[in-house]
C-alpha cells in the first residue's frame, strides 16, 4: 500500500501533521547500501531498511507511534538531499539511493551517542535495563569507545515515583519522548510531559497528579533506557537470568499477547508482544502485573476434604473419590438436574471442554453456566454475527453499548481510540460519561434500564431513516463510509436484568452491516461459552438439539433438555433441588451480583466441590477442594472476544500437587465409569476439533503452527492465518516484539497434506440468533430517588488484583456511591461522607463521592468492591433499582 502522506508527530503540537510523499509509482525501487529493494512508496525509510535486513539505530522512533525525529540517531545519507536525513521521518520514493554506513553517517551516529552519554549516569550495574539496554547496545555497535566529557554531569534526585508502579530516574532519561508520546498519542492520558529546557529538560508529572494511567506500564517497556522502571519488577532479576515464553493475558477477554518471564521458577515480568490483530504490543497495567497472584500464599495446592473442624489436607485419590461420590449420589438419587456446575471462564479451552463433557456427557446435567449473571445470555453472545478487533479500523462506525471498555477491556479501548483518531466515528451509548466519551463523535445518554431507547433510534438511522433524535447526528458521520458497523455490546448495568441489552442487540442485529464484539469481561469466558459451559449449548456454538447427534456420538449422550443458568442454579440450590454444586474456578460470593441468594444457596446445598486455586471460595461451605494449576503454570489455549483461539503457555512449575482442571474432569469421569482417554493437552485439542463444530479443523497441530492464533470458525478465516514462527524471532523489549516466536514451523509437506480440500466446514450448522427479544419495562422516574448503575472498574476487590501485591497496594476495595455534584449537594454531604441508602430490598450505609461523569438522578456503584453494595441493594428481578439517599444525621 503506497501513500501520499505519512502521519507524523510534530510534538509538542497535537495538530494532525503529515509528511508529504513525493509522487511516483506505487512500488518504489530503493537502493540501501548498494542493495536494491522494491517497497511500497511512502513507507518510512527506517522501516523499509529494517524489513530488508539493515538495522538503522534509533531511540525515539517506535513502530506503533508516529515519527517525531527528536533523537537524531537514525540519520542517513540520501543522495540528492542536502545534509543527513532522519530515516524515521523520511518516506521512500522511487529511485532513492541511501547510505546508512557512510563516513558522514558513522560520524553522526558516533556524535549522537557521545552527546547522549554526556549526561547519562552510566549506573548500568544497578540499572534494571542493564543487559537489555538499547543505549548500551547501540553504543557498543555504533558509538565511540570512550567519552571526552570531563565535566560534571547533570544531577537529579533519583528515582522519584511518578505513579503507584512507575519510578522515574531523570538522570538516565535521554529525552526521547517515547513515554510522553505514548501517554498522549496512544493512551490519551497526557499525564506526563517535558519540563525545563536545554540539557535541563526533564520528564515530569503535573503537581499533585500522578501518572495514574491504566497503561503506564507500557512506557516502562518502551523506554530505551532505565529511566522508567516498574516497582513490581525493579531489582527482581537481571535480563540474562530471565527465561521467557509467549502466552496471552487472561485478565480480560481481549487476550493480549505477552512474553511471560521468570527466574528461578518465579514469574517476574510480562511484556507486551506485538500481535498485530489484537494488542499491537500494548498491555494494560492490570494484565501486566497480575502475574503476581500466581505466587500468592493464599493459593491452595493440595487437595482438601471437609473434616470435623474444617477443611483438612487429603490425598488426590481421597479427594477425587469424595467428589465423584458426591456427584454420583446426587445423580443417582435425585437425577442429573440435582447437579450444578458454575464457572469455567478463568480456565483454558481444554478445561472448559473437559468439564462440559463431564457435566453434560457423563453426568447429563445441563445446569452449567460459566457466567455468573454478570454478562449476557450465551445464546445471544454465540448467535450474533461477530466482528474482529481489526474491523474497528475499517468500520463505518463503532457503537459502544452498555460497556466501558476502558474499565473492562482496556486494550480494546486503545484499539477503539486508535480507530477514532484515524477518523472512524464512535458512538457511545451509556448512562454516564465513560472512557470513550472524550473521543466519541456522538454520545447518546439514557436512563438506567432503558438502553434500548437510544439504540432503537440508532438502528433506524443505520437503516437509513431519520428519527428526529440525537441519533440522527450519526447519519452524517457514516454517510460516505463503507465497512461494517462494529457494535461493542455489553451488559449496561449489573443492577438490572439483561433484558434491555438483549432487546438492544436484537434491534441492532436487524441492520445488515452490524457486527458485534461482545464486551464480556472474564479472561476465557468466550472459550467457556464456545465449549459448552452454558445451559442449552454444546461445545462448538451449537444448541443441545442441533448438536445432539454429532456430539452425542462421541460422548455417548447429552442432556435431554435445556438446564438452568447461574441464577437458576443458585435458586435451585437454595430450594434444595440442587444437591451437589461444583464451583469451577469461581467464587459466587464475589462473582455473582446477588449475594444473599448465594449465601442461601451455599447454606442449603448438600455438597460443594471447589475446583480452583483458592480454598476459601464459597466461604466456609466447601466440602471438597480440588486444587488447579492456573495461568502461567499450564499449557493450553484460550479464546478472546473476537473468537481468536490462542496458545497459552506454562512458564513455571506449579507448586504442590495442583492439577489442570481438564485432568481433574477426566479423573472424575473415570471414577464415574467413563474413560476420556485424554493424556495430553494436544489430545484434548484434537478432540475439540473433532467434536465441537465451530472448532472444525482447529486441531493441536494448527494451533501450534498458527502464529497469531486462529479465529473461529476456521472456514471463514483460514486465509488470515500466518503460519510458522515469527520471521524475525523474538525481539528486544523496547521495540515491538514480533508475535509468534513460539509457533512451530510447518513441515514442508504438512499444509497441503493436512487440508487437501481446504479447511473443513463445521459438521453442524452453527447457532445464529437475531432476536426477537422482549422489551424491558420502563419504570416511572421517582424524582426523589437515584437510579442505580452498577459496573466493574478495572481495579477493585477482584481476587487476582487482591492477591497481586503491586496492584492490591492501590486498588480501591471499599464500596462507594458515585453521584453528580448536584445530587451530592442536594443530599447535603461532603465527598466521602457516609449516607444511608435505602432500596426496596435493604438499607445500608455507604460513603458518597461526587463524580463529574455521573448525570443527575443516577448513582453509580462500582461492582467489584467489598462490603455493602449491589449484592445487598439490588433485587435482580426488578427492572431497575431506585435508591433513597439520606444523611445519617
Amino acid at each position, binding site marked *: 500500500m503506497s501513500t501520499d502522506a505519512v502521519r507524523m508527530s*510534530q510534538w509538542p503540537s497535537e*495538530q494532525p501533521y503529515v509528511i508529504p510523499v513525493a509522487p511516483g509509482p506505487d512500488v518504489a525501487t530503493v537502493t540501501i547500501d548498494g542493495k536494491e529493494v522494491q517497497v511500497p512508496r511512502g513507507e518510512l525509510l527506517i522501516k523499509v531498511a529494517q524489513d530488508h535486513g539493515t538495522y538503522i539505530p534509533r531511540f525515539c522512533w517506535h513502530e506503533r507511534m508516529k515519527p517525531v525525529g527528536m533523537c537524531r540517531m537514525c540519520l542517513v545519507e540520501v543522495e540528492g538531499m542536502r545534509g*543527513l536525513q532522519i530515516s524515521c521521518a523520511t518516506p521512500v520514493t522511487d529511485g532513492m539511493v541511501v547510505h546508512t554506513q557512510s563516513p558522514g553517517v558513522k*560520524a553522526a551516529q558516533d556524535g549522537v551517542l557521545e552527546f547522549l552519554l554526556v549526561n547519562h549516569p552510566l549506573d548500568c550495574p544497578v540499572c534494571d535495563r542493564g543487559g537489555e539496554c538499547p543505549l548500551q547496545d547501540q553504543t557498543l555497535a555504533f558509538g565511540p569507545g570512550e567519552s571526552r566529557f570531563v565535566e560534571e554531569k547533570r544531577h537529579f534526585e533519583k528515582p522519584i515515583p511518578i505513579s503507584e508502579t512507575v519510578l522515574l530516574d531523570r538522570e538516565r532519561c535521554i529525552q526521547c519522548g517515547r513515554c510522553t508520546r505514548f501517554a498522549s498519542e496512544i493512551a490519551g492520558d497526557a499525564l506526563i510531559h517535558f519540563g525545563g529546557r*536545554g*540539557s535541563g529538560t526533564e520528564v515530569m508529572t503535573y503537581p499533585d497528579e500522578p501518572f495514574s494511567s491504566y497503561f503506564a506500564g507500557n512506557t516502562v517497556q518502551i523506554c530505551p533506557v532505565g529511566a522508567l522502571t516498574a516497582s513490581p519488577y525493579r531489582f527482581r532479576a537481571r535480563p540474562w537470568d530471565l527465561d521467557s515464553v509467549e502466552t496471552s493475558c487472561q485478565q480480560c477477554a481481549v487476550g493480549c499477547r505477552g512474553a511471560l518471564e521468570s527466574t528461578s521458577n518465579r514469574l517476574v515480568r510480562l511484556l507486551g508482544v506485538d500481535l498485530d490483530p489484537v494488542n499491537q504490543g500494548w498491555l494494560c497495567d492490570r494484565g501486566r502485573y497480575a502475574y503476581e497472584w500466581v505466587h500468592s500464599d493464599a493459593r491452595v495446592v493440595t487437595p482438601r476434604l471437609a473434616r470435623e473442624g474444617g477443611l483438612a489436607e487429603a490425598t488426590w485419590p481421597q479427594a477425587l473419590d469424595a467428589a465423584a461420590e458426591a456427584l454420583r449420589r446426587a445423580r443417582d438419587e435425585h437425577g442429573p438436574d440435582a447437579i450444578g456446575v458454575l464457572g469455567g471462564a478463568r480456565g483454558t479451552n481444554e478445561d472448559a471442554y473437559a468439564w462440559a463433557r463431564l457435566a453434560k456427557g457423563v453426568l447429563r446435567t445441563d445446569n452449567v453456566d460459566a457466567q455468573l449473571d454478570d454478562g449476557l445470555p450465551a445464546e445471544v453472545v454465540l448467535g450474533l454475527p461477530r466482528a474482529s478487533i481489526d474491523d474497528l479500523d475499517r468500520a463505518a462506525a463503532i457503537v459502544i453499548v452498555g460497556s466501558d471498555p476502558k474499565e473492562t477491556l482496556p486494550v480494546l479501548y486503545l484499539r477503539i481510540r486508535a480507530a477514532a483518531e484515524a477518523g472512524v466515528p464512535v458512538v457511545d451509548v451509556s448512562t454516564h460519561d465513560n472512557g470513550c466519551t472524550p473521543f466519541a463523535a456522538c454520545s447518546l445518554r439514557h436512563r438506567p434500564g432503558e438502553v434500548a431507547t437510544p439504540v432503537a433510534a440508532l438502528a433506524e438511522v443505520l437503516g437509513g431513516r431519520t428519527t428526529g433524535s440525537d441519533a440522527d447526528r450519526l447519519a452524517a458521520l457514516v454517510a460516505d463510509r463503507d465497512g461494517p458497523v462494529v457494535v461493542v455490546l455489553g451488559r449496561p448495568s449489573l443492577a438490572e436484568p439483561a433484558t434491555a441489552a438483549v432487546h438492544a442487540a436484537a434491534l441492532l442485529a436487524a441492520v445488515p452491516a452490524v457486527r458485534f464484539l461482545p464486551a464480556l469481561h472474564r479472561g476465557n469466558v468466550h472459550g467457556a461459552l464456545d465449549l459448552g459451559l452454558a445451559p442449552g449449548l454444546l461445545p462448538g456454538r451449537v444448541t443441545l438439539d442441533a448438536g445432539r447427534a454429532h456430539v452425542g456420538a462421541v460422548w455417548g449422550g447429552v442432556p435431554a433438555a435445556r438446564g438452568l443458568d447461574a441464577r437458576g442454579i443458585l435458586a435451585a440450590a437454595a430450594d434444595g433441588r440442587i444437591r451437589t454444586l461444583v464451583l469451577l474456578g469461581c467464587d459466587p460470593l464475589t462473582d455473582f451480583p446477588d449475594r444473599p441468594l448465594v449465601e442461601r444457596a451455599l447454606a442449603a446445598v448438600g455438597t460443594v466441590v471447589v475446583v480452583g486455586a483458592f480454598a476459601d471460595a464459597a466461604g466456609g461451605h466447601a466440602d471438597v477442594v480440588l486444587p488447579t494449576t492456573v495461568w502461567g503454570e499450564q499449557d493450553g489455549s484460550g479464546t478472546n472476544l473476537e473468537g481468536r483461539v490462542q496458545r497459552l503457555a506454562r512458564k513455571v512449575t506449579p507448586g504442590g500437587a495442583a492439577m489442570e482442571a481438564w485432568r481433574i474432569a477426566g479423573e472424575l469421569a473415570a471414577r464415574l465409569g467413563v474413560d476420556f482417554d485424554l493424556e495430553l493437552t494436544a489430545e484434548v485439542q484434537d478432540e475439540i476439533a473433532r467434536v465441537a463444530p465451530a472448532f472444525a479443523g482447529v486441531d493441536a497441530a494448527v494451533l501450534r503452527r498458527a502464529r497469531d492464533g486462529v479465529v473461529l470458525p476456521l472456514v471463514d478465516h483460514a486465509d488470515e492465518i500466518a503460519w510458522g514462527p515469527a520471521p524475525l524471532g523474538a525481539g528486544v523489549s523496547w521495540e515491538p516484539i514480533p508475535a509468534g516466536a513460539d509457533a512451530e514451523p510447518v513441515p514442508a509437506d504438512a499444509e497441503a497434506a493436512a487440508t487437501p480440500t481446504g479447511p473443513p466446514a463445521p459438521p453442524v450448522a452453527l447457532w445464529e440468533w437475531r432476536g426477537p427479544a422482549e422489551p424491558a419495562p420502563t419504570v416511572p422516574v421517582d424524582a426523589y430517588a437515584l437510579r442505580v448503575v452498577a459496573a466493574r472498574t478495572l481495579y477493585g476487590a477482584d481476587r487476582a488484583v487482591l492477591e497481586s501485591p503491586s496492584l492490591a497496594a492501590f486498588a480501591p476495595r471499599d464500596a462507594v456511591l458515585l453521584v453528580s455534584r448536584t445530587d451530592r449537594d442536594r443530599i447535603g454531604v461532603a465527598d466521602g461522607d457516609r449516607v444511608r441508602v435505602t432500596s426496596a430490598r435493604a438499607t445500608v450505609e455507604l460513603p458518597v463521592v461526587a463524580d463529574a461523569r455521573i448525570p443527575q438522578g443516577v448513582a453509580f456503584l462500582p461492582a467489584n468492591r467489598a462490603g455493602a453494595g449491589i449484592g445487598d441493594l439490588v433485587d435482580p428481578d426488578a427492572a431497575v433499582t431506585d435508591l433513597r439517599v439520606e444523611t445519617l444525621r
Partner: protein
Amino acid sequence: MAQETPVVTRFMRERPDDSWQFESARAYNAAYTRLERAFAMGPEAIVEAVQQSGLRGKGGAGFGTGQKWSFLPKGVFPRYLCINGDEGEPATFKDHMLTERDPHQLVEGAIITAYAIQANHAFIYLRGEFALGADRLQQAIDDAYAHGFLGKDIGGSGFDLELVLHRGAGCYIAGDETGLLSSLEGERAMPRIKPPFPAAQGLYAAPTVVNNIETISTIPWIIANGAEWYAGMGVNRSTGTRIFSVSGHVERPGNYEVELGMTFRELIEGLAGGVRDGKRMKFFIPGGASSPWLLPEHLDSPLDMDYAGSELRTMLGSGAITVFDETTDPLLVSWRLAKFYAHESCGKCTPCREGSSWIEKVLYRMVNGQGRPEDLDLLLSFGSNIVPGLNAPFAQTTICALGPSTMSHVVSLDRWFRDEIVARLERDTARRTSLEIVTVSAGADA
C-alpha cells in the same frame, strides 16, 4: 560621508513625539491609504510585485518574501499569517523600535500581506518583554478596528481580517518560525521537523506564512512606490534597505537604516562613529549572535547577503552588528554566547540539547584557567557532530538552526584567534598542577 536611507524608519524620525498615534500616522504618514491600491491590484499582483521588488526576509534567513508567499498550496483554506516579533537574537533591537514607534505601518503591512496570501486571520507574535511596544501595538490594532481597517469587509473590499497580538513568554526559540507556531498553538515553543514546511502545514496544520516585523513593515512602501523603486535600491540580489542594529564598543550605538551595498566601514565608522575612546577594533559580529565573526580587515566588504555567505563565510542574519575593541577577550565573548545558547536550546533534539551545554562547560573551564591545549580541538571535534563540516552555510544534524548557531562563535575563535588561544591554554596548563573541573549550570545567571 555615509548616509542613511530611511524607508521604514522615515516617519518615526519625522515625528518622534507621536508617530505611533493613529491620528498622527493618518495625517502625516497617510497610514492605511495603500490599502486601496493593494485591493485594486488584487492578491496575485501583490505577490508578483513583492517578488519583483527582490524583498528578502529580514528576520535572519533572508529568504525571498514574494517567493515564500507563492509557495502556499492553491485552494487550501484557511490560511494564516504570523508576524515574527520575537526578536530574541542578542543585540538585535530593530523590531522593538518598529513596534513602539510605528505600529500603524506594521498593521498596514499585515493587512496587505494577509490580503495578498488570502488569510483572514493574522497573528503578531511579540516578544513578551516589549511592554511599551505591546501597549502601542494593541492600541494601533484597536484603532484600526475602530476605523474599519480591520474586521469585516475592510474598506468595502469584501476582505475580512482578524489581527491578534500575542505576547511571548520569554524564550529565544519562539523566534524560530516553527517554534513560534508551536507556541502560538499554546504548546512549548519547540521547533518542528520540516517537511512539512509552514507554507504547507503551519499553524494548526494549515498553510501559513511567517514573516518578520521589518519585512512586513516594508510592504506598504513597495505597494506605494512600486517594485522597481525598491529593486532599484541595494546591490545585486540584496535589494532595498535594511535596519542594522549597531552595538558594542562604538561611539554611537543605534539602529541605522541603510541601502544594502554600503560597506561595513561606512556603517560602523561612518554612521556609528567607530570604536569608542579611540581604541582599535579587535573583531565584530556582523549579523547577530548566530553569525560567525569578522575582523577589521573585512570592514571594506559590502553589506550584501550573498557576498557575506560566499566570500566571508558568515551572514548578515538579523542585522545586528556588535563591535569589540582591542581590550576584549574573545574567549570570554565566546563563553557568554555559549551560555546563551545552552540556556535557550529547547531540548528537543539530542545534538543541540547536550552539545550546547557541553560547549558552555568546556569554554567556562577555558575562560577560568582550567583549559587544556587540546580543548579548542575538542570543541571543534564534537561540535562538528552538530554542524558537519563546520563551515557556513552551516549544515546541521539538529532540527532547527539554533543547533549550528551554538558553534558559530567557536568556529570564529578557531578561524581568527587560534594561536592566541592555544598559547593561553598552554600557559594555563603549565601553571596548573591538576585539572580542576569547574562548571556552572547553564541556567544560572552569569
